[in-house]
């Protein structure tokens, strides 16, 4: 699942949490889910960041000298 979908899901969970009608039990479940999802999002960001770093290094490594 991609980052944007996860983010959207996170927003939904937040809305549910904010809803007064949501029971404590349910809130706990939602909370758990939200934490897991947040972790996923952070992981996916970190992965992208790592990839970007590697690519940046490669960009800097390109030799622009001629002859």
């Amino acid at each position, binding site marked *: 699942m991609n980052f944007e979908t996860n*983010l959207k899901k996170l927003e939904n969970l937040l809305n549910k949490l904010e809803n007064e009608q949501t029971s*404590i039990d349910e809130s706990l479940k939602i909370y758990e889910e939200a934490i897991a999802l947040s972790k996923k999002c*952070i992981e996916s960001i970190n992965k992208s960041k790592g990839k970007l770093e590697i*690519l*940046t290094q490669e960009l800097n490594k390109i030799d622009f000298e001629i002859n």
Partner: protein
Amino acid sequence: MNENRQYITITELNSRLSSLISQDKILNDIPVVGEISDIKIVRGHMYSTIKDENSSIPFIVFNIKTYQYIPNEGDKILTIGSPNLYEKTGKISFIAQYVEPFGIGKLYIEFEQLKKKLSKNGYFKEIYKKPLPKYPIQICVVTSKQGAVINDIVTTIRRKNHLINIDLIDVAVQGENAVKEIVNGLKLADEQGYDVIILARGGGSFEDLMPFNAEIVAETIFNMKTCLVSAIGHETDFTIADFVADKRASTPTAAAEIIAFSVLDLITEINDILSNIETKINLKILKAQQKIFSRGKDIQYHADKKINNCFNLVNNYIGKINILNPNNILQKGYFKIKKGQQEVFSVKDFSVGDELKITGYDSEITAEVIQVKKRK
């Protein structure tokens, strides 16, 4: 005449001389050759002197403008006319009825006349001159195979260039067949698709060079498709062919010099061009690389920004979620109450004696309902 008189008057003398001259059959309508000088034109008549090495006589042409040929100072001419004594002064002049240029003078005047005519018809105009090819490989020399001309040309070309192919079309360059052979030779060469044709002849007298002053030779050159270089006579000789040719060389050797490109120079030139191209390409590559690099940096910046935005977004959610952590509520002193497995919300959910399960931050309590009252 008065019989007693011992003399005659001047008028009578001149009248008698005048009639003697005009009645002399030998002196009337005779062709005379001489050189013209001291020309004066007065009221349309030409007054001058005609002379040879030893003698001279006043020479008059009436209405000179009606003549096709008007003599110039120093021209050798052939004239037909008669001597005439002007009775008033006793002066004898030659009155011409006909004049034409004579000898080399004649050839020269014909040359000038043809030059004038061809020039007027545009034969010498720059716009009709074909450019000399820079690197001719197939060339043809139209000249006589006798004489030094062809040898001079080949030697000069070979000194600079061993690649040029030199053909010869052998033609008479003087004498009665020369004009015809030159015209045919040029036409033949023109059909073969040569890069350039040289029309050449060694030095000679003005008369020797006359075939190159023929109108038909000029016309042939003018109508050629191939670039023609003329190299006729010495440096000081100019023929009509020289004026019509696309390029005039002063001598056959000079023509060879003009045409032959140096193979060594060409190789150097090509190398220069190649290295120039290489430099330009390298510069282009460098520029492209710099552009790519700077684009790469832009992309990196935007990607960083995007990732940071995502990070902030998620962090924002995490913060909000943390605030809503149900445990936080319990920590604040709130308790969660359940009746059996059932969640309870309203006064209707409670009855006296119900057993309730109460969960706190760090406790689990079982309690019984003692009183139920609706809040106001």
